């Protein structure tokens, strides 16, 4: 009968020893962790899941963490890059019975299903005490207030369709003043093209194409058409000639982007502006971070245009914290504390300054903000210009289906009539 040679037995013995050592250290580590995590009496402990992982975003969320600590709480950070992954972990942990104290979502309908299942705590006390109905813009309230209860606390407002431009490129193309209407905008693009500069820096990803579309819908179509299409999902509005023109203008933008745009990341497109290779980019206000990192200053090396009409809509998107349902008294206390800390004016200012967004409350002191943020804050004071981005009005599925049509229309020879038809189908459920 075959017997194992000596070295095989030695290997086996070594493996067993390693395993024993491993299990032993595991037990020790588990014990230590348990001791460390023993709840400290009193201090409200908040574990927060979010997806702010880059340098600028990290600094911003640290401001919230510091404010929370200053208010007496303990902040436990669980950062997971990628919005959809972060939200997936949140949902799975809620389902698995191990929910975080708070979790980040976008100002959107992403968490409506969770509310429907009764899996979120509300923060009505804080909301009523601070009069959120009056304090916050209407698009935000429409998303966080469901059936009369407030289920999320907003952190910031990003504007999705800022038009950034490189001053050097404008000078080279002979554009003397900022375009202030849609025809002037296209004229500027033509001038840039004639000067041999890439007129529109664009990254060929579905969400970026949606931004271009939203910019055209808001600026060319106007607030009424925008709401009819995206909020009411009115088939007549979608089939209307006005909407057709919006789609044509959107597709016209494609003639101004360079051939290498497909797949490009948004910050690589911004880099084209920074180096003067491109003239304009339509992107959210997070693009400021790229300019700042390259040591460029607003109104000096680059400029920012909020809209192509004196009262162009201000397209708002943003981030909120939701509070998974828990009966643990300490956790509930932590949730309420976090909600009130987040909306406090100081936290709002500190967070938005580093994040590139504007605060959700209109009663803050804007003097510290940079030129572009100040423009944004000033516009925010005019409630008639408040509008939400598509995900504020559409469910994630409808929004995704809309994006599919928009990116297909951009990239293929789809006729505008077919695009209208497909959009109507996408928004019909």
């Amino acid at each position, binding site marked *: 009968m075959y017997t194992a040679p000596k070295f095989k037995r030695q290997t086996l013995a070594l493996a067993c020893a390693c395993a024993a050592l491993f299990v032993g250290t595991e037990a020790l580590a588990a014990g230590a962790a348990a001791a460390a995590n023993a709840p400290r009496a009193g201090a409200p402990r908040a574990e927060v899941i979010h997806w702010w992982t880059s340098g600028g975003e990290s600094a911003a969320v640290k401001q919230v963490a510091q404010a929370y600590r200053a208010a007496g709480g303990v902040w436990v950070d669980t950062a997971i890059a990628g919005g959809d992954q972060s939200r997936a972990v949140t949902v799975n942990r809620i*389902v698995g019975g191990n929910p975080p104290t708070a979790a980040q979502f976008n100002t959107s309908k992403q968490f409506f299903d969770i509310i429907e299942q009764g899996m979120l705590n509300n923060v009505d006390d804080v909301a009523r005490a601070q009069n959120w109905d009056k304090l916050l813009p209407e698009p935000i309230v429409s998303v966080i207030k469901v059936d009369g209860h407030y289920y999320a606390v907003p952190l910031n407002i990003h504007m999705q369709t800022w038009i950034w431009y490189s001053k050097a490129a404008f000078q080279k193309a002979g554009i003397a003043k900022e375009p202030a209407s849609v025809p002037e905008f296209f004229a500027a693009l033509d001038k840039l093209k004639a000067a041999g500069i890439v007129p529109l820096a664009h990254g060929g990803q579905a969400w970026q194409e949606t931004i271009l579309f939203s910019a055209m819908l808001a600026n060319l179509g106007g607030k009424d058409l925008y709401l009819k299409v995206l909020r009411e999902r009115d088939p007549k509005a979608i089939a209307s000639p006005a909407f057709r023109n919006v789609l044509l203008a959107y597709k016209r933008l494609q003639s101004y982007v360079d051939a290498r745009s497909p797949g490009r990341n948004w910050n690589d497109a911004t880099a084209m502006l920074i180096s003067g290779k491109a003239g304009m980019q339509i992107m959210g206000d997070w693009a400021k971070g790229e300019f700042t990192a390259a040591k460029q200053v607003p109104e000096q090396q680059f400029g920012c245009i909020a809209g192509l009409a004196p009262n162009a809509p201000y397209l708002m998107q943003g981030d909120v914290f939701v509070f998974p349902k828990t009966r643990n008294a300490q956790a509930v206390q932590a949730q309420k504390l976090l909600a009130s800390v987040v909306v406090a004016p100081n936290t709002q200012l500190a967070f938005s300054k580093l994040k590139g967004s504007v605060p959700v409350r209109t009663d803050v002191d804007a003097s510290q903000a940079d030129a572009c943020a100040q423009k944004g804050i000033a516009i925010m004071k005019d409630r008639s210009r408040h509008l939400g981005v598509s995900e504020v009005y559409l469910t994630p599925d409808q929004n995704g289906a809309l994006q599919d049509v928009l990116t297909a229309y951009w990239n293929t020879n789809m006729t505008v009539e077919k695009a209208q038809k497909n959009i109507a189908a996408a928004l019909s459920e």
Partner: protein
Amino acid sequence: MSRPIRAVTPYAALLPMALTVIVAYLGTMAWTLRTSFTASRTFPSDKFIGMTQYERLFDNERWMLSLNNLALYGLLFILACLVIGFLLAVFIDQNVSGEGVLRTVFLYPYAMSFVATGLVWQWLLTPGTGIDGAIASMGFPDFVFDWIVDQDMAIYTIVIATVWQSAGLVMALMLAGLRGIDGDIWKAARLDGIPTWRVYVSIIVPMLWPTVATVFLLLATSVVKLYDAVVAMTQGGPGTASEVPAKFIMDHLFLRSNIGLASAGAIMLLVPVVALLAPYAYARSRSGRERGRA
């Protein structure tokens, strides 16, 4: 050992596998099937809507395109990996110097997270600033390689990057198979005066058949599950040109909170797999039984 104990032991040893199959796999397949007949969004719901999700699926241009892409991709990917992996293994097996280094060179792509390597491939294949720019500057100014921004060719760039990632593993498996072949074969072949290439074609390759079967199955699983590479390189673009079923399913599972449609997609993906595997499994179990009697 007494007979009863010996008869039971194999069954007992297979208990973990049985549990895993029944609870984890069959259970999940059943749950997915059930969900595909409901109107579930973020959470599973009990609202049964029959075949509506499947109708939506086949009305969806993106899904149909993804199936098409998968077939194209699968064919090319498996073929390229098999051929390149086999050639690499055979050549390395020829007593070349620096075998250890070479083996690591071909295997290292498998170790790297595709999130970053996918981005690098995107850079390399971007027209103008990638490889074609370098070749152009070397004296071929008209050379353009713009597959990655082309609607029809984008899926092939994914073939290139994933073959780069997986061919090394195929090589490793083939090498293990090759080295497991008895050296006496070579001796006998030399005695018989058969040229080396002929030995490979007529004797070695047929003997490697179990290895090839293993490799084929492994590659097939990674074809069906293709997701990371597409997300990292093209995000399914330009537009939806390089969309694949697994990405479609994933997008609807998480991003679009529509697990009903995602489940329908997952079941549709599973159906051809089962259809192909069942005869394969049946054939193998028959040949196995015959071998056992030998």
